């Protein structure tokens, strides 16, 4: 059972994790909304070091308001950016 459902508000954590991570710097600490659950997959942050990355981790597509990501954003207020984020980078918001 995935921890988050479509419509849930989530915050991206900063795990301070060195090495190979699957989260872009620009979304850390940002708040977004879960758009869908994309399935569960072996953790690519483990696969990158040749480890199995199991058990699988839930992956979500999350959307963020562009004007929330970029302080100088001048486009429409309802513009969003969608990105896939693994469960361990998210917290309820």
């Amino acid at each position: 059972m995935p921890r988050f459902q479509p419509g849930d508000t989530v915050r991206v954590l900063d795990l301070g994790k060195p090495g190979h991570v699957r989260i872009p710097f620009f979304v850390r600490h940002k708040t977004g909304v879960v758009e869908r659950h994309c399935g569960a997959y072996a953790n690519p942050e483990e696969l990158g070091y040749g480890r199995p990355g199991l058990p699988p981790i839930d992956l979500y597509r999350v959307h963020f308001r562009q004007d929330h990501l970029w302080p100088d954003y001048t486009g429409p207020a309802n513009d969003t950016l969608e990105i896939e984020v693994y469960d361990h980078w998210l917290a309820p918001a």
Partner: protein
Amino acid sequence: MSEPPFRGYHDIGGLPGGPIQQDEHPFADWQKLSEAIRGALEQKDRCVSLDEIRRAFESFGEPLYETLGFYERRAEALTLLLDEKGLVERAEVLARMDALAAGRGQRVDHAAKTVSAGQ
């Protein structure tokens, strides 16, 4: 808001990127070949995964990362990973490069990563 302690040099989303080169550059044979080898190694029991390729070029160090083009990064990462896994030693790859270059009357400077007309 605290500044995250770690931002990889490859993680450039939102940073000024400079001008975009819009000229077409056709694929070179070595680019197709190295990508085919990479794909084959991934298909074969995930001997080398794309996740590992990414991890490898995130660990090159910024100077080398910035020097290499996309397919050069992948070829360099593949060399590094095959050596790491004990499948093909880096020295073997470099020796083969030297032999191929010599056959063309060229010389490879591995430190400078250049190929020149050699003696």
